[in-house]
Protein backbone atom coordinates (compact mmCIF):
# COMPACT_ATOMS: atom_id res chain seq x y z
CA UNK A 1 0.00 0.00 0.00
CA UNK A 2 1.51 3.33 -1.01
CA UNK A 3 1.15 6.17 1.40
CA UNK A 4 2.78 9.54 1.03
CA UNK A 5 4.05 11.16 4.16
CA UNK A 6 3.79 14.72 5.41
CA UNK A 7 7.33 15.84 6.35
CA UNK A 8 7.80 15.90 10.13
CA UNK A 9 9.19 19.43 9.98
CA UNK A 10 5.99 20.62 8.29
CA UNK A 11 3.86 18.93 10.95
CA UNK A 12 5.88 20.79 13.60
CA UNK A 13 5.36 24.11 11.81
CA UNK A 14 1.62 23.51 11.50
CA UNK A 15 1.37 22.73 15.23
CA UNK A 16 3.28 25.90 16.11
CA UNK A 17 1.09 28.09 13.94
CA UNK A 18 -2.13 26.50 15.18
CA UNK A 19 -0.98 27.24 18.74
CA UNK A 20 -0.42 30.86 17.72
CA UNK A 21 -3.90 31.02 16.15
CA UNK A 22 -5.48 29.51 19.26
CA UNK A 23 -3.97 32.29 21.38
CA UNK A 24 -5.46 34.98 19.13
CA UNK A 25 -9.06 33.74 19.18
CA UNK A 26 -10.88 34.28 22.46
CA UNK A 27 -14.23 32.71 21.56
CA UNK A 28 -14.95 28.95 21.38
CA UNK A 29 -13.68 27.54 18.14
CA UNK A 30 -12.27 24.47 16.43
CA UNK A 31 -9.45 24.39 13.95
CA UNK A 32 -7.88 21.70 11.82
CA UNK A 33 -5.22 21.42 9.13
CA UNK A 34 -5.59 18.42 6.85
CA UNK A 35 -4.40 17.05 3.53
CA UNK A 36 -6.61 17.33 0.46
CA UNK A 37 -7.58 13.68 0.85
CA UNK A 38 -8.75 14.26 4.41
CA UNK A 39 -5.88 13.19 6.64
CA UNK A 40 -5.58 15.36 9.76
CA UNK A 41 -2.15 16.96 10.19
CA UNK A 42 -3.03 18.92 13.34
CA UNK A 43 -6.23 19.90 15.11
CA UNK A 44 -7.50 21.89 18.08
CA UNK A 45 -8.96 20.94 20.52
CA UNK A 46 -7.07 17.71 19.89
CA UNK A 47 -9.31 14.85 18.77
CA UNK A 48 -12.54 16.87 18.99
CA UNK A 49 -13.11 17.26 15.26
CA UNK A 50 -14.70 14.17 13.71
CA UNK A 51 -12.72 12.20 11.11
CA UNK A 52 -15.39 12.93 8.52
CA UNK A 53 -15.04 16.70 8.69
CA UNK A 54 -11.49 16.99 7.21
CA UNK A 55 -12.59 14.60 4.43
CA UNK A 56 -15.58 16.82 3.65
CA UNK A 57 -13.38 19.92 3.89
CA UNK A 58 -10.99 18.47 1.30
CA UNK A 59 -13.90 17.64 -0.98
CA UNK A 60 -15.41 21.11 -0.63
CA UNK A 61 -12.07 22.78 -1.30
CA UNK A 62 -11.63 20.59 -4.40
CA UNK A 63 -15.11 21.50 -5.61
CA UNK A 64 -14.29 25.16 -4.96
CA UNK A 65 -11.21 24.81 -7.15
CA UNK A 66 -13.19 23.11 -9.92
CA UNK A 67 -15.86 25.82 -9.82
CA UNK A 68 -13.20 28.57 -9.80
CA UNK A 69 -11.49 27.00 -12.82
CA UNK A 70 -14.82 26.74 -14.64
CA UNK A 71 -15.43 30.46 -14.00
CA UNK A 72 -11.84 31.34 -15.05
CA UNK A 73 -11.03 32.46 -11.50
CA UNK A 74 -7.82 30.39 -11.68
CA UNK A 75 -7.98 29.04 -8.15
CA UNK A 76 -10.10 28.99 -5.01
CA UNK A 77 -8.31 30.43 -1.98
CA UNK A 78 -11.08 30.06 0.55
CA UNK A 79 -14.63 28.85 1.07
CA UNK A 80 -16.89 30.35 3.73
CA UNK A 81 -19.93 28.77 5.31
CA UNK A 82 -22.14 31.08 7.32
CA UNK A 83 -24.42 29.17 9.68
CA UNK A 84 -27.07 30.25 12.17
CA UNK A 85 -24.82 29.65 15.18
CA UNK A 86 -21.32 29.58 13.79
CA UNK A 87 -19.15 30.28 10.80
CA UNK A 88 -16.64 28.11 9.03
CA UNK A 89 -13.74 29.07 6.82
CA UNK A 90 -11.77 26.72 4.63
CA UNK A 91 -8.50 28.12 3.43
CA UNK A 92 -5.90 26.56 1.20
CA UNK A 93 -2.38 26.40 2.66
CA UNK A 94 -0.19 26.21 -0.44
CA UNK A 95 2.97 24.93 1.22
CA UNK A 96 3.29 21.58 -0.52
CA UNK A 97 2.93 20.90 -4.23
CA UNK A 98 -0.68 20.20 -3.32
CA UNK A 99 -2.22 22.60 -0.81
CA UNK A 100 -3.23 21.58 2.67
CA UNK A 101 -6.62 22.73 3.94
CA UNK A 102 -7.02 24.92 7.02
CA UNK A 103 -10.49 24.76 8.56
CA UNK A 104 -11.58 27.18 11.27
CA UNK A 105 -14.99 27.01 12.91
CA UNK A 106 -16.02 29.72 15.37
CA UNK A 107 -19.28 30.92 16.84
CA UNK A 108 -20.99 34.07 15.56
CA UNK A 109 -19.34 36.25 18.22
CA UNK A 110 -16.21 36.19 16.10
CA UNK A 111 -16.83 38.19 12.95
CA UNK A 112 -16.34 36.44 9.65
CA UNK A 113 -13.85 39.11 8.58
CA UNK A 114 -11.71 38.65 11.67
CA UNK A 115 -11.86 34.89 11.30
CA UNK A 116 -10.74 35.13 7.69
CA UNK A 117 -7.94 37.54 8.60
CA UNK A 118 -6.58 35.28 11.36
CA UNK A 119 -6.91 32.17 9.23
CA UNK A 120 -5.14 33.83 6.30
CA UNK A 121 -2.29 34.99 8.53
CA UNK A 122 -1.97 31.47 9.93
CA UNK A 123 -1.84 30.01 6.42
CA UNK A 124 0.75 32.56 5.31
CA UNK A 125 2.88 31.93 8.40
CA UNK A 126 2.90 28.18 7.74
CA UNK A 127 3.94 28.78 4.12
CA UNK A 128 6.63 31.31 5.06
CA UNK A 129 8.20 29.03 7.68
CA UNK A 130 8.00 26.04 5.37
CA UNK A 131 9.66 28.03 2.59
CA UNK A 132 12.67 28.56 4.87
CA UNK A 133 12.78 25.20 6.66
CA UNK A 134 11.20 23.02 4.00
CA UNK A 135 14.10 23.38 1.62
CA UNK A 136 16.47 21.91 4.19
CA UNK A 137 16.44 18.14 3.81
CA UNK A 138 15.21 16.01 6.69
CA UNK A 139 18.18 14.75 8.77
CA UNK A 140 18.99 11.24 7.59
CA UNK A 141 20.96 8.63 9.58
CA UNK A 142 24.44 8.49 8.06
CA UNK A 143 25.64 5.07 7.08
CA UNK A 144 29.16 4.44 8.42
CA UNK A 145 31.79 3.56 5.84
CA UNK A 146 34.22 0.67 6.57
CA UNK A 147 37.11 3.17 6.88
CA UNK A 148 35.17 5.30 9.38
CA UNK A 149 34.38 2.15 11.40
CA UNK A 150 38.13 1.25 11.58
CA UNK A 151 39.04 4.82 12.60
CA UNK A 152 36.35 4.80 15.31
CA UNK A 153 37.74 1.50 16.61
CA UNK A 154 41.28 2.87 16.69
CA UNK A 155 40.14 6.02 18.51
CA UNK A 156 38.29 3.92 21.09
CA UNK A 157 41.34 1.72 21.63
CA UNK A 158 43.58 4.80 22.00
CA UNK A 159 41.29 6.37 24.60
CA UNK A 160 41.10 3.11 26.59
CA UNK A 161 44.92 2.88 26.51
CA UNK A 162 45.32 6.45 27.74
CA UNK A 163 42.83 5.81 30.55
CA UNK A 164 44.74 2.70 31.61
CA UNK A 165 47.93 4.66 31.73
Amino acid at each position, binding site marked *: *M*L*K*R*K*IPDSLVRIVHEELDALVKRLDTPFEVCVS*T*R*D*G*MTVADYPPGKIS*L*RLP*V*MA*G*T*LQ*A*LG*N*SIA*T*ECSLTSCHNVMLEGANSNMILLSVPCL*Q*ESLVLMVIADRQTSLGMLLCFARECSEAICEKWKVLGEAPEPQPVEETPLARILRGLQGRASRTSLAE
Partner: protein
Amino acid sequence: MEALKLVITGPSGAGKTSVIQAVSAVPVVSTEASAFRETSHHLEKLTTTIALDYGELTLQDGRVLMIIGTPGQSRYDFMCSILARGAMGLIILIDHTSVDPVADLRYFTSLYRELLETTPFMVGVTHTDQTLNESLDMYLEALALDGWDAEVPVVRLDARSPKEIIEVFHCLLAILEPTP
Protein backbone atom coordinates in the same frame (compact mmCIF):
# COMPACT_ATOMS: atom_id res chain seq x y z
CA MET B 1 -31.14 20.05 -25.47
CA GLU B 2 -31.99 17.03 -23.35
CA ALA B 3 -29.31 15.80 -21.00
CA LEU B 4 -29.03 12.44 -19.31
CA LYS B 5 -27.07 11.90 -16.13
CA LEU B 6 -25.05 8.73 -15.83
CA VAL B 7 -23.17 7.90 -12.65
CA ILE B 8 -20.10 5.69 -12.56
CA THR B 9 -19.20 4.32 -9.18
CA GLY B 10 -17.11 1.56 -7.64
CA PRO B 11 -14.10 1.09 -5.41
CA SER B 12 -10.88 3.02 -5.71
CA GLY B 13 -8.65 1.78 -8.51
CA ALA B 14 -11.50 0.21 -10.51
CA GLY B 15 -11.03 2.71 -13.36
CA LYS B 16 -13.81 5.26 -12.97
CA THR B 17 -11.64 8.26 -13.78
CA SER B 18 -10.02 6.39 -16.68
CA VAL B 19 -13.42 5.59 -18.19
CA ILE B 20 -14.49 9.23 -18.14
CA GLN B 21 -11.16 10.43 -19.50
CA ALA B 22 -11.35 7.87 -22.30
CA VAL B 23 -14.73 8.93 -23.68
CA SER B 24 -15.40 12.53 -22.67
CA ALA B 25 -15.80 14.95 -25.54
CA VAL B 26 -15.08 17.91 -23.26
CA PRO B 27 -12.12 18.49 -20.93
CA VAL B 28 -12.76 16.35 -17.87
CA VAL B 29 -13.43 18.12 -14.58
CA SER B 30 -11.31 16.14 -12.21
CA THR B 31 -10.71 16.45 -8.48
CA GLU B 32 -7.73 14.21 -7.94
CA ALA B 33 -5.59 14.62 -4.82
CA SER B 34 -2.40 12.97 -3.69
CA ALA B 35 -3.15 9.94 -1.60
CA PHE B 36 -1.76 10.51 1.87
CA ARG B 37 -4.02 7.70 3.02
CA GLU B 38 -4.24 4.28 1.43
CA THR B 39 -6.33 4.26 -1.73
CA SER B 40 -6.27 0.79 -3.26
CA HIS B 41 -4.06 -2.24 -3.58
CA HIS B 42 -2.72 -0.90 -6.90
CA LEU B 43 0.82 0.12 -6.10
CA GLU B 44 1.03 2.57 -8.97
CA LYS B 45 -2.01 4.57 -7.84
CA LEU B 46 -0.81 7.76 -6.17
CA THR B 47 -3.87 9.92 -6.52
CA THR B 48 -7.50 9.57 -5.60
CA THR B 49 -10.74 11.30 -6.59
CA ILE B 50 -11.99 13.36 -3.66
CA ALA B 51 -15.12 15.03 -5.02
CA LEU B 52 -16.13 13.99 -8.54
CA ASP B 53 -15.05 13.48 -12.13
CA TYR B 54 -17.21 14.99 -14.85
CA GLY B 55 -17.25 14.41 -18.56
CA GLU B 56 -19.71 14.72 -21.41
CA LEU B 57 -20.57 12.71 -24.47
CA THR B 58 -23.02 13.67 -27.22
CA LEU B 59 -25.19 10.78 -28.31
CA GLN B 60 -26.13 10.14 -31.95
CA ASP B 61 -29.60 11.58 -31.36
CA GLY B 62 -28.11 14.85 -30.07
CA ARG B 63 -28.75 14.25 -26.39
CA VAL B 64 -25.90 14.96 -24.03
CA LEU B 65 -24.76 12.26 -21.65
CA MET B 66 -23.35 13.83 -18.48
CA ILE B 67 -20.97 11.28 -17.03
CA ILE B 68 -20.25 11.68 -13.34
CA GLY B 69 -17.66 9.62 -11.51
CA THR B 70 -17.85 9.26 -7.76
CA PRO B 71 -14.95 8.95 -5.30
CA GLY B 72 -14.06 5.35 -4.53
CA GLN B 73 -13.34 5.19 -0.82
CA SER B 74 -16.07 4.62 1.71
CA ARG B 75 -15.23 7.80 3.61
CA TYR B 76 -16.61 9.74 0.61
CA ASP B 77 -19.97 7.95 0.68
CA PHE B 78 -21.65 11.23 1.62
CA MET B 79 -20.58 12.53 -1.81
CA CYS B 80 -21.93 9.47 -3.63
CA SER B 81 -25.48 10.06 -2.46
CA ILE B 82 -25.29 13.72 -3.51
CA LEU B 83 -23.94 12.85 -6.96
CA ALA B 84 -26.42 10.06 -7.61
CA ARG B 85 -29.49 12.27 -7.29
CA GLY B 86 -31.44 12.32 -10.54
CA ALA B 87 -29.25 9.76 -12.30
CA MET B 88 -30.89 7.91 -15.17
CA GLY B 89 -28.53 4.98 -14.80
CA LEU B 90 -25.58 3.71 -12.85
CA ILE B 91 -22.53 1.68 -13.76
CA ILE B 92 -20.70 -0.08 -10.95
CA LEU B 93 -17.08 -0.76 -11.85
CA ILE B 94 -15.44 -3.61 -9.99
CA ASP B 95 -11.73 -4.33 -9.97
CA HIS B 96 -11.48 -8.08 -10.67
CA THR B 97 -8.04 -8.24 -9.00
CA SER B 98 -9.28 -6.73 -5.74
CA VAL B 99 -8.90 -8.74 -2.53
CA ASP B 100 -12.65 -9.43 -2.41
CA PRO B 101 -14.37 -8.10 -5.56
CA VAL B 102 -17.71 -9.69 -4.68
CA ALA B 103 -17.73 -7.86 -1.35
CA ASP B 104 -16.97 -4.65 -3.27
CA LEU B 105 -19.98 -5.26 -5.54
CA ARG B 106 -22.27 -5.98 -2.60
CA TYR B 107 -21.04 -2.86 -0.83
CA PHE B 108 -21.93 -0.62 -3.75
CA THR B 109 -25.28 -2.26 -4.54
CA SER B 110 -26.13 -1.81 -0.88
CA LEU B 111 -24.93 1.80 -0.84
CA TYR B 112 -27.14 2.71 -3.82
CA ARG B 113 -29.99 0.28 -3.04
CA GLU B 114 -32.65 2.99 -2.96
CA LEU B 115 -31.60 4.36 -6.35
CA LEU B 116 -31.06 0.95 -7.93
CA GLU B 117 -34.55 -0.21 -7.05
CA THR B 118 -35.92 2.29 -9.56
CA THR B 119 -32.96 2.93 -11.89
CA PRO B 120 -31.24 0.61 -14.35
CA PHE B 121 -27.69 -0.38 -13.59
CA MET B 122 -25.00 -2.67 -14.82
CA VAL B 123 -21.69 -4.00 -13.60
CA GLY B 124 -18.43 -3.45 -15.48
CA VAL B 125 -15.59 -5.71 -14.38
CA THR B 126 -12.14 -4.26 -15.00
CA HIS B 127 -8.57 -5.63 -14.80
CA THR B 128 -9.81 -9.06 -15.95
CA ASP B 129 -6.63 -9.48 -17.99
CA GLN B 130 -4.54 -9.39 -14.80
CA THR B 131 -5.86 -12.56 -13.19
CA LEU B 132 -6.19 -16.22 -14.13
CA ASN B 133 -9.77 -16.44 -12.92
CA GLU B 134 -11.69 -14.85 -15.76
CA SER B 135 -15.17 -16.08 -14.83
CA LEU B 136 -17.75 -13.46 -13.93
CA ASP B 137 -20.20 -15.98 -12.49
CA MET B 138 -19.43 -15.01 -8.90
CA TYR B 139 -20.85 -11.52 -9.53
CA LEU B 140 -24.05 -12.89 -11.05
CA GLU B 141 -24.43 -15.27 -8.12
CA ALA B 142 -23.90 -12.47 -5.60
CA LEU B 143 -26.48 -10.27 -7.34
CA ALA B 144 -28.99 -13.14 -7.42
CA LEU B 145 -28.34 -13.91 -3.77
CA ASP B 146 -29.08 -10.28 -2.84
CA GLY B 147 -32.33 -10.36 -4.77
CA TRP B 148 -31.36 -8.27 -7.77
CA ASP B 149 -32.90 -8.81 -11.17
CA ALA B 150 -31.27 -11.76 -12.93
CA GLU B 151 -30.97 -9.62 -16.06
CA VAL B 152 -28.57 -7.08 -14.60
CA PRO B 153 -25.73 -7.13 -17.14
CA VAL B 154 -22.27 -8.00 -15.85
CA VAL B 155 -19.62 -7.36 -18.51
CA ARG B 156 -15.85 -7.25 -18.83
CA LEU B 157 -14.62 -3.75 -19.48
CA ASP B 158 -11.28 -2.24 -20.39
CA ALA B 159 -11.45 1.18 -18.71
CA ARG B 160 -9.07 2.61 -21.35
CA SER B 161 -11.04 1.47 -24.39
CA PRO B 162 -13.53 4.08 -25.69
CA LYS B 163 -15.12 1.45 -27.94
CA GLU B 164 -15.89 -0.92 -25.05
CA ILE B 165 -17.09 1.89 -22.81
CA ILE B 166 -19.47 3.27 -25.41
CA GLU B 167 -20.86 -0.24 -25.93
CA VAL B 168 -21.57 -0.40 -22.21
CA PHE B 169 -23.30 3.01 -22.33
CA HIS B 170 -25.46 1.82 -25.24
CA CYS B 171 -26.32 -1.32 -23.31
CA LEU B 172 -27.49 0.77 -20.34
CA LEU B 173 -29.48 3.09 -22.61
CA ALA B 174 -31.11 0.06 -24.19
CA ILE B 175 -32.29 -1.06 -20.75
CA LEU B 176 -33.57 2.45 -20.08
CA GLU B 177 -35.34 2.82 -23.40
CA PRO B 178 -36.22 -0.65 -24.69
CA THR B 179 -36.93 -0.77 -28.41
CA PRO B 180 -40.68 -1.27 -28.93
